[in-house]
């Protein structure tokens, strides 16, 4: 489902020498698999996640996600591919501050063009957010924000979930809820790639890949 072959990425720096973030890395996540990616800061974990998510073109190497090579697509087609196939969860949640919970979950529908309010409400119930439907993120607890972000990631029924430190800001109970949902997603045949520093999160994954600095 996620296949990165010999992927390298070099960040250009106007103030000094270019920075090699990822060097000739191979990464494979099959359908139904939950892979945790860990390693020291600066080893390229988030860079790999963004490359897999079609947001950061690698300097070299081949990327295939959900059967498509996103960097062979145009920018607009790649955006449509992300909307259709990939869900993102971030440590900082990245909710839209002026939309309430329901609208944040429905936000991906702006890209897909179809609004399924019933699915959004079902996701709210699944994540225990039904009483917070019309609250903006500022009024939510940290756990509720991450559950909202998780529900948004699942709204378009993606094939791949990419999670960057999804439990980094959460208490153990909310972290457990998120990890359970990621496991459940993988169990239903989705592929999960999670960047984490935490042992608890690594234990929830099927496999853990540890990166070292290039």
């Amino acid at each position, binding site marked *: 489902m996620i296949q990165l072959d010999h992927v390298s990425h070099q960040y250009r720096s106007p103030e000094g020498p270019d920075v090699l973030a990822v060097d000739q890395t191979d990464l494979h996540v099959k359908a139904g698999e939950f892979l945790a990616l860990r390693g020291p800061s600066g080893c390229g974990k988030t860079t790999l996640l963004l490359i897999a998510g079609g947001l950061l073109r690698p300097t070299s190497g081949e990327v295939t996600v959900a059967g498509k090579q996103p960097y062979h697509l145009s920018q607009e087609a790649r955006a449509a591919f992300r909307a259709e196939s990939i869900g993102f969860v*971030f440590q900082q949640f990245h909710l*839209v501050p002026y939309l309430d919970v329901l*609208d944040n979950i429905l936000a991906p529908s702006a*890209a897909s063009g179809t609004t399924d309010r019933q699915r959004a409400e079902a996701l709210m119930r699944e994540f225990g957010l039904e009483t917070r439907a019309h609250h903006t993120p500022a009024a939510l607890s940290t756990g509720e924000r991450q559950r909202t972000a998780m529900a948004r990631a699942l709204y378009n029924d993606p094939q791949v979930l990419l999670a960057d430190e999804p439990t980094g800001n959460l208490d153990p109970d909310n972290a457990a809820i998120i990890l359970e949902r990621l496991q459940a997603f993988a169990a239903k045949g989705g592929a999960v790639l999670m960047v984490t520093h935490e042992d608890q999160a690594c234990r929830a994954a099927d496999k853990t890949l540890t990166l070292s600095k290039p």
Partner: protein
Amino acid sequence: MRIWHFVLRELKHRKLNALLAIAAVSVATACLTDALMLLKADAAATEAVLAEKHAAVEKAGAELNDAMRKITKGLGFNVVILPKDQDLQEMHHSGTISKSMPEEYVVRLANSNIVTVNHLLPTVTKKLTWPEQGDIPIVLYGTRGEVPIAHRDPKKPLLDAVPRGSMIVGYHLAKKLDLRTDTEVTLLGRPFKVLKTHDERGTVDDTTVWINLREAQEMLGMENLIHAIQALECHCAGDRITQIREEITAILPGTQAIERGAPALARAEARDKAKISAETSLSREVAHRQQLRSQREKVAAILVPLATIGSALLMGLMTLTNVRQRRQEIAILRAIGLRSRQVLGIFLGKALVIGVIGALIGIILGMALGAVLHEETTAPDALAILLPAGLAVGVALLGSWLPAVAAARQDAATVLQEE
């Protein structure tokens, strides 16, 4: 979910930001609306003033024509009948007539069937000095008043006869010699009583003494002789003097007739001057109004672009700030699949809403300001509404364009890695 949902929710969420942007657009719109209204009102007021002035000039012209018609009808023009051998050069040069003709001529003329003459005044006139008054030079004018024309209905005489023993004194003489009504004086040994004194005329009349014709003839040794016959209010169309001469000389073969300037001409000239003065005033008013309009246009030409540019810059700055505030939001929207043109649409949609609301407020504000600040206002026309409305939306969109494009091109990966 549609893009408009993002636009409206964001506007509601950041109310202060939206209100400031709307205020910026409203100010520029109000300036343009006010300027357009002022210029339109100025043009309307100018038209009204000029129409009024035109009407006044037209009225003055009509009055002039009417007056000319009445004056011409009432006075006609004047002819002096002189002895045929009178040297006209001598008369014009010295103001005196040396030749004479029988007084009987006036009777003959009055009894004839002449149709071109209304009033006949036989006169003698001579320049002399007044020995009893220190030899002051005077013009002695003897008149018997008007001789009625036989075949006409009696008319009110233009000049009454001076009774024997009486004199009428010109303004300058009366003033210099301190002569008043009923003052008794002696002229060439004859006693006279001043019948009246004339007001100042500014002509030779001011040094003239009018006495009875018969007395004048006796004093000058010209019994039954006269110097001239004044024929007043002569009427005829076409070549007037030629016709009158022919008619008069047919009746009085030993005479010549010359035309004298009529008071009507002087009045007509005065009226002409009044008309010219009115037209000059009209021209001055036109120039003044044009200058005023030009000044207002210059002010508007500076104020409106300044307000527009200022508003566009402020709008751009606020949109840029907004884009920077929303970097993470833009990044996540791009990550979940929104296309760059949809992100562009979110920011330009916001600008459009601000532009439309700013236009409405600005136009109303501009009209209200126009009504309060300017004396001359008119109802706004379509241009005064559509142009500011277009400007408002244009300012909002143009000011937001570059920041919105920057937002649409923002690299989501870079932002998402910043945390």
